[in-house]
């Protein structure tokens, strides 16, 4: 029998994501929550472009979700996997949903239960790869030895994030520029409308590619 994880790690690279939802469809095939996908995949802002954000649980070393849970329902195991809420305990308060810095836990209102990504524990604990990272066609989600990533990827992994004053360390790696040791988070630059009238086409980073800007076209056909 192959052991759990077996030297493999999870690497996330949203810049490769093509928004195909293979991960979402495959997540519903995971044995710990079959039929209910846990991974998040959303357009960052469809009006301005096709950028998408795949988000799995980052499995924080000191998980905010577990710390804010009033019912001790979220447990981290010896592998560092932060599990879905314990079914008898979760009181469906949504503390974890609102506090997780990555926006991961899902409140299943119909079940009065928080559920989240557990890195396909049914698979990874017996040496298989997680569903999402096996099927992901773009490599935005990759699960395997870090040597592969170091050798073949232009971007390099970090597992530290700086949210303002808060440093968060995680089990899951994020691909970023090789110069960085931690991924710096910025929020203020991404609040473009604050103090102005709300413009749906502004709600993204400046420079999201605009087909009109790259094209020559007749302004009044």
């Amino acid at each position, binding site marked *: 029998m192959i052991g759990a994880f077996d030297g493999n790690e999870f690497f996330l690279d949203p*810049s*490769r*994501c*093509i*928004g*195909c*939802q*293979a991960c*979402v*469809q*495959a997540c*519903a*095939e995971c044995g710990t929550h*079959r*039929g209910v996908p846990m991974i998040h*995949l*959303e*357009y960052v*802002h*469809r*009006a*301005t*472009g*096709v*950028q*998408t954000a795949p988000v799995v649980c980052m499995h924080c070393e000191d998980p905010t979700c577990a710390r804010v849970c009033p019912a001790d329902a979220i447990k981290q195991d010896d592998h560092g996997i932060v599990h879905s809420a314990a079914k008898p305990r979760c009181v469906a308060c949504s503390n974890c949903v609102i506090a997780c810095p990555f926006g991961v836990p899902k409140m299943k209102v119909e079940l009065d239960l928080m559920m989240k990504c557990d890195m396909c524990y049914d698979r990874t604990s017996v040496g298989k*790869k997680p*569903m999402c990272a*096996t*099927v*992901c*066609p*773009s*490599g935005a989600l990759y699960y395997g030895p870090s040597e592969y990533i170091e050798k*073949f*990827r*232009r971007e390099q992994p970090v597992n530290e994030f700086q949210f303002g004053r808060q440093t968060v360390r995680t089990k899951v790696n994020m691909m970023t520029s090789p110069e960085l040791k931690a991924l710096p988070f910025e929020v203020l630059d991404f609040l473009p409308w604050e103090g102005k009238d709300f413009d*749906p*086409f502004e*709600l993204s980073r400046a420079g*999201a*590619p*605009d*087909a*009109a800007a*790259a*094209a*020559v*076209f*007749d302004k*009044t*056909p």
Partner: protein
Amino acid sequence: MATLTLPEEKYIELYGPTPAHTPAGGWNNGEPDKLVKTHCCFCGVQCGIQLKVKDNKVIGFEPWEEFPVNQGKLCPKGVKRYMQNDHPDRLLSPLIRNESGFREAGWYEALHKTANAIKDIQAKYGKDAFAFLGGASMTNEKAYLNGKFARIALGTANIDYNGRLCMVSAGAANRMAFGVDRAANPWSDIPLAKVIILTGTNLAECFPILTDYVWRARDAGAKIIVIDPRITPIGRTADLFLPVRPGRDSALANGILHVMIERGWTDEKFIAEHTTDFDKVRQLVKRYTPEVTEKITGIPAKSIIAAAEMWGTAETSMLLHARGIEHHTKGTENVLTYINLVLATGRIGRPGCGYGTITGQGNGQGGREHGQRCNQLPGGRDISKPEHREFIADFWGIPEPELPKVGLTACEIIDAIERGEIKGLLSISFNPLVSIPDSERTRKALEKLEFFACIDFFLSETARYADVVLAGSLQEEDEGTVTTGEGRCVRLRNSVSPPENARVDWKIICELAELLGKEKFFKYKNAGEIFTELTAASKGGPIDYSGMTYEKIEQNMGIFWPCPAPDHPGTPRLFEGGKFHHPDGRAKFHAYEYRPPAEDVDAEFPLFFTSGRVVSQYLSGTQTRRIGGLVDQYPEPLCEMHPLLAERLGIKDRDIVRVVTRRGEITVPAQVVKSIRPDTVFIPYHWPGKKAANLVTNRALDPISKIPEFKVCACRVEKVSDAPKLAAAGQPIPLKSK
């Protein structure tokens, strides 16, 4: 007269599409009896997948990581493909049309009725009055069998297939330029390229698995150039994005070549030694200066120069294209002008250097090789070439004069039905009502048929018009081979048997042949025997499979043709050493002046209309509109338009809009996005009836390949204020788009 006998809702209630949301046996359906290593059926990549089978039902899947092409990767269609099995809409026995729609019938009755109708029509109107339409999602075995059945059992010239709507222009161009029709390189050459042009391919949504190949190239330092009127997911982070005005592709390729020649970025040695006719091209592109090209294509001159520089100076390169440049009345010309870019650099036939068209259909490659096209015989042979006719007539054991001549292509067959020249039709895995442009005319044609029989596993929108529906087999219910977009012939294994009274497709065809008195030509005990015959028939032809066996294919995880001998390993990369397949061994340049599309914008219809796919749906949706998870992902067609255009028309996101062309109109919710040219609107084509994009597209054909012009026509867009009912259709798609 085959008009519908029931209202549409009734057909939907009885035969679907019903989006199935749970697998056979429910989500908790236990441990499988076996895992079957086979392939996804939903595009030309043919990803390897293991189907979980229990009690003769497919209950789930497990990635197949050892298969080298996708290494376990799948797109959403592949993930949920298993849900087409054990589906509530599955046809479980033959159907015969009556006043109340259809009644279930036995095989004896259904087959006899079909055979008798064929005989009657052919006796009355001649052999060619009965046509056969095949599909490019079926196995090589079936493609071969369809061709043989039409030529020997039906004796009709009019056999064609839905690949005619797919990439025949690329196929024609490939033959004209290289003397052979196949992607020149295996996908594994993509990551080795230092620059990649992706033109007219929404690669990330239509061939998602290839994304990783492209990104791997980028990891190794490659530059990516994407040419498309829309910023698709693969285009979003491209190094250079050229938002071409629809229908201007050949001008762009000529413009890029102009700059390359001017700056000396061509490989004159290669051109001199391995190609012909470059002088004509050199002459032609002189007038495509960046400024002229900018005017035609709507791409800034500086971007054109930048593309020429990236492409012209690269060490290694790949050029890949798909329907975006192929679905045009000058589809063949578009492809040939792009091939000029490849030949001019001499970067082909080496690792990391080459070219390919990415086939869209499950067996888009194999389906066009074994003789189910009106102008083709097995082994890629030409039906008009005497020596090819002689070989096949001999091989089949019929006199050469009995072998029909060139027939009509798919769209022409529909046209001929409309004109009343073709009276009867047998089709398999083809849904022309959704997939052929100008759907209203297709519907009228279907209504005119005196007899129409379909072989299918679900009742497609087209099959509603049939007199007899023969319940056939899903991909996993049969076995055989398919040939992927890179020319790799792979093995499909039988996972389950057809349910209840449904039958395996090839057996149905053989039984019909028997009733038509030709049983001695169709004595097969299994699909393997058809394959053996197919490979023998291909021996010595342009497309040679004669060295392949099932065992060899399985052992090698697929074999690339040509494979002319049992000890031949197959040919992953074509044209090595600059050897092309024309008799002179050279590749041929083609000089084509840009010409506008069949219908260009004008004052009345000022906007370009274009159509294409979404990642969650496959072709006419007969299968994928029945899989709940895929339906939820993108439930209804939306009309993409740029905010600048929307503002001018007073349209806001999710407003209901009407898109009108000279052929018809379609009413759908708007999706206002900056990712499309402001002079173009886009609607995906997978839906039937009032939601069919093909209500408005143009059935003008490419004179060379007879591919219709799906990708450009002229339209007008207006806001619909009186559509409260349609507002429901505007439900936001699950991907949060706030």
